[in-house]
């Protein structure tokens, strides 16, 4: 289980995160929501150890992530960032194979190859497995990168704005894949989302950030409330229930 304890981060005298603490429930999807500049991406970066915090610590199973070795942590937590655009000519299968790097150091064993094939199957990438990742469409490429993370086989998966630049169909497809990762493979998924409705529909829990502080957190029902969200995003909004699911209307 991941616990964020009193994390703060200051970028050249601007406080981006200010004493943020919470726990992330295992085997669930947790979304970070909030306005631009609230510190969501920085927080995700700190949890994944890509960014060093200025104060506080992140604990994985009661042990600070800074005490884990690089490849040990890489077997527990994986992160996919939008800026991880790789301008390399690798095939989909090769890319997914590199997900096994923390386990094999790059020399794939029989077991690694099985894991790669399973990831290819799981994300329905068999048809394009020998294609260059640069030849794929945005949605397919995103799926290939998720495949790499599935092959990495970490119990925690962090994603920074995975729906960025995806159209409606691919956004839904992506969220369904993440839902399956949690429900079927028992993964803990943490993601930064901009679309509050996608977050509400597919998450188990939500963390709303504002000005570097936790503004609200809890189950979807606890966070997706008119008073809470209006103060987080500073816009008037309405919440309607359609078929028992909350939909936020803000335009």
């Amino acid at each position, binding site marked *: 289980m991941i616990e964020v304890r009193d994390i703060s981060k200051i970028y050249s005298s601007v406080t981006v995160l200010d004493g943020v603490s919470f726990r992330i429930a295992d085997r669930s999807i947790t979304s970070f929501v909030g306005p631009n500049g609230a510190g969501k991406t920085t927080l995700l970066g700190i949890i*994944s*150890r*890509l960014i060093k915090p200025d104060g506080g610590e992140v604990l994985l199973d009661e042990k600070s992530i800074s005490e884990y*070795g*690089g*490849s*040990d*942590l*890489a*077997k527990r*937590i*994986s*992160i*996919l*960032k939008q*800026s*991880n655009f*790789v*301008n*390399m*000519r*690798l*095939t989909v299968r*090769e890319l997914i194979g*590199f*997900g096994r*790097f*923390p386990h094999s*150091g*790059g*020399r794939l064993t029989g077991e690694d190859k099985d894991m790669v094939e399973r990831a290819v199957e799981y994300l329905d990438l068999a048809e394009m497995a020998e294609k*260059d990742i640069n030849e794929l469409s945005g949605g397919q490429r995103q799926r290939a990168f998720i495949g790499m993370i599935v092959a*990495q086989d970490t119990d925690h998966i962090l994603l920074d704005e995975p729906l960025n630049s995806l159209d409606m169909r691919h956004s839904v497809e992506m969220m369904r894949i993440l839902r399956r990762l949690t429900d079927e493979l028992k993964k803990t998924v943490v993601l930064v989302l901009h679309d509050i409705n996608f977050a509400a529909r597919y998450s188990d829990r939500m963390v709303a950030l504002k000005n570097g502080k936790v503004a609200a957190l809890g189950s979807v029902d606890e966070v997706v409330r008119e008073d809470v969200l209006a103060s987080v995003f500073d816009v008037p909004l309405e919440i309607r229930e359609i078929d028992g699911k909350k939909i936020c209307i803000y335009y």
Partner: protein
Amino acid sequence: MRTIYAVIALAVLSCASLFIGNIPITLNDLLSWSSDKVEVLFLTRFPRLAAVLITGAGMSICGLIMQHITRNRFVSPTTGASVNSAHFGLLVATIFFSAYGYISSLFFAAAFAMAGTFAFVFLIRKIKVRSLEMVPLLGIMLGILIEAMATFLAYRYNMVESLSAWMIGSFTWIISGRYELLYLSVPMVLIAFIYANKFTVAGMGEDVSLSLGLKYDQVVNIGLGITSVVTAVVVIIVGAVPFLDLIVPNIVSLTKGDNLRRTIWDTAIFGALFLLICDIFSRLVIFPYEVPIGLTVGVIGSITFLILLFRRRAYER
């Protein structure tokens, strides 16, 4: 390009290159073990061939590593300040420490090449240059700056001619006993083979590397260390061979992709083949005289590079 054809071509041309030169050597001379002819073979022909192959393979792999580490296809020891820095180091060694011979040349050229290359990579990581063309431009700029310092020093110590001679690589003076330092590249290249997978992961960027548990800084340092030593050794023995380190990795990448473990052999083989073809051309074009290899590579390389750029544009659309 199939690897096997390249290997066959390399083998055939290697044998052919042994028989090109002012003193004609025939197969009969070898069979009858004509002693002075065999001596020529071992004194000049074989060393020259070895030097060409090692330089071709070594510099190409340097380019490949630098292109992955900087994530930019236009970076190589030539455009990344390594070659100019090695010149500077070699000059310092020649002026102030000539009594120590090759050891001081090696030490200073390698140390300066390392300093220049690390400075360049540090710069582009610090400035976080986003645009693709800015990175090699920055490298060339840094290289010119370092070359200017070297030229200044050369003027003060009357060494301008030596400096300009180092800038145009040549295999003419390669003879047995004067080129063996080049073999230092071989273990460097072997280390590169061992690290091939790690360089590929590093090529995916610092964040991906961290997420996959790669010791990014360590891998970058090893890669740049290999590059610096090989560049230094080549600059000392052969001189600067422009473009080779830039073009060969790009050509291989276009046909074979960017997974280093698959492409590093092809890069080495193709680099050796490319330089060997240029060398044979250099020796034949105004026979019995020869054109400096740097010139041939520059001309053939520039044309190839232009074709490559046009093809790449077509490919990317």
